[in-house]
């Protein structure tokens, strides 16, 4: 039996027992999904596909079954705010090591979501197409990719010139520490990194704190290397 679902004011008919996501696909209104893999996995654990019902409830579209006359809205301020929180939560437990991630170079779903919902934390490496030995840091250059915010679609490293940090720094401490280890293991020195960083970041209110945490991270990484 087909049931009637109203998606953003548009009427679609889907078989009973299907989820809201099926109705959304039929209506052509895409919502972001991360954990959804068809019939293989439907635990609704990532909560990226939250939609708003007419009674004001936020439900995950990939698991909520349709019923006759169900009204769904996919792009309300509440939905956007909820999704933003979801991206923040996911990123907070994400081990950000973009320079060694196999999905780097334009395949990162998290980067797309973080850019769409204005969440900071992912470095430029996530969109950089230079892998392995082509990586400028691996070559020993003070490229700021690992500690600069992503979202510029990476024109500098893909043209062979190192990132100069014009989009501003990543301030998450764990990312800074991991990036520092990456720098140290490739022989990039703190003074070179700070020299490039001072070009666009010196005037930032949090530059001193950032510099202090980078210095601390370098000390830690170098100390760890000597043991």
């Amino acid at each position, binding site marked *: 039996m087909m049931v009637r679902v109203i998606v953003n004011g548009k009427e679609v008919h889907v078989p009973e027992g299907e989820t809201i996501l099926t109705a959304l696909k039929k209506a052509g209104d895409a919502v972001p999904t991360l954990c959804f893999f068809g019939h293989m996995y439907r635990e609704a654990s990532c909560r990226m596909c939250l939609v708003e019902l007419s009674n004001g409830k936020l439900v995950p579209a990939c698991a909520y079954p349709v019923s006759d006359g169900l009204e769904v809205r996919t792009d309300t301020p509440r939905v956007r705010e909820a999704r933003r929180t979801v991206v923040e939560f996911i990123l907070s437990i994400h081990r950000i090591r973009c320079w060694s991630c196999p999905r780097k170079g334009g395949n990162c779903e998290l980067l797309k979501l973080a850019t769409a919902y204005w969440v900071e934390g992912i470095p430029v490496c996530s969109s950089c197409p230079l892998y392995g030995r082509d990586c400028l840091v691996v070559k020993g250059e003070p490229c700021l990719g690992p500690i600069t915010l992503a979202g510029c679609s990476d024109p500098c490293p893909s*043209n062979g*010139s190192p990132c100069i940090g*014009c989009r501003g720094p990543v301030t998450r401490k764990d990312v800074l520490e991991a990036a520092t280890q990456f720098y140290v293991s490739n022989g990039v020195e703190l003074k070179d990194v700070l020299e490039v960083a001072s070009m666009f970041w010196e005037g930032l209110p949090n530059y001193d704190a950032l510099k202090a945490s980078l210095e601390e991270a370098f000390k830690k990484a170098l100390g760890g290397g000597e043991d």
Partner: protein
Amino acid sequence: MRLARVEEVDRVFGHLELEVLRDDGEVKAFFKVTHGARFIELTVNGRPYWEVPYVASRICGACSIAHYVASIRAVERALGLDAGEWVEDFRDAVNMVQIAQNHLVHLAFLALPDYVGVQGLSDLKSRAGRLVVNSMKLNTACLKVIRLIAGRIVNPNTLGVGGLLRRPFKGPLLKAADYLRECEALAKEVVDEALTLLKVPELKDPANNCVAVKPRKIYLTTGDEILTSAGLSFKPSNYREHLEEMQPEYSNSKAVALSGAPVHVGARARYELLRNYLRDLNVPKIDLSNPFSNLIIKAVEIPYCVTAAREILEGLAMRTADTGVDPPREGGEGEGVGVVEAPRGLLIHHYVVSGKRIVNANIITPTEINARHIEASAKALTESLVSDGRPLNAGELQRKLTMLVRAYDPCLPCAVHVSVVRGRKHA
């Protein structure tokens, strides 16, 4: 007595105020740049020389390539580097595409509404819809070409000190040439339509002094000599002997004079001085001593730039580059001046390099050079519209004055890259 005051000149890049006063029977015009000061020259100081273009190009988002090329040339002159002919040609081609795009935006979106008699772009669309749509198409195509060959629309990243950071492959060069070939007919159409609408007011230039860069090859290529309308020619490194910089108290930007007299740069100056380097620029019959004729020369430069850039790119694709890709990092001692014809006229970058660092920097932008000339023209325009010490029509005077300022196409973010702080001049 105040004759006219335009508190905020709209449809220009940045913030600007224009005031015309009458003092002891004499008309005085003030070109007040109210855009906040930016300390680009101070930022460059102390930085490694290969980072100069990164910072210098941030002076202006509209003509970043001109600043990029000028700063690179200055540093190369200081260190005695030679980028080779291939790279110089490549820079010229990118600069030309940028000039075409800049002229187009200024002409179709900023200046033309005045001559059609509408308030802005949205009104212009109802009167000259085809022109607006074609201009937008052409603008997009030019930006696409810049992204393809220079890496990015603003602040390109394939050009570098001493050569290229990434050599463009033959494929993208030919593809860019193809895009430009498709644009040629469009550019002609846009400009023909714009020229039928441009009926410029009469005005006699009170001080017809101008300077422009003598091109290396054809019109609008870079060079290492500056020509003046007095028949002089001097090396860029001697620019301080001829061009005097001063800081007016009322403005955030500096102003420049040529041997004490106001001087203008831009499309009109180029055409006046460099006509011999042209092959086929179809300029309608105009009075070159009219400051408003700048707009007409700008319009006819658009198709010229598109064609010339296309020819240069096609030529480059057939030749192999004669420099390495890695910029040299040895450093040295020296002082160098780089000049380039930016969309708005002569642009001068001057750096002193010691070791690997810049120790002194001075930048002169076209708008600074034009500042005093705009004042002189505004004075002449006001005098022609005033009788018995009162404007004949205050609204008309104000409208004509803003039209005059827009005909020069001032770029205020460029002009305010330095200022006086606590009575001390940072340059």
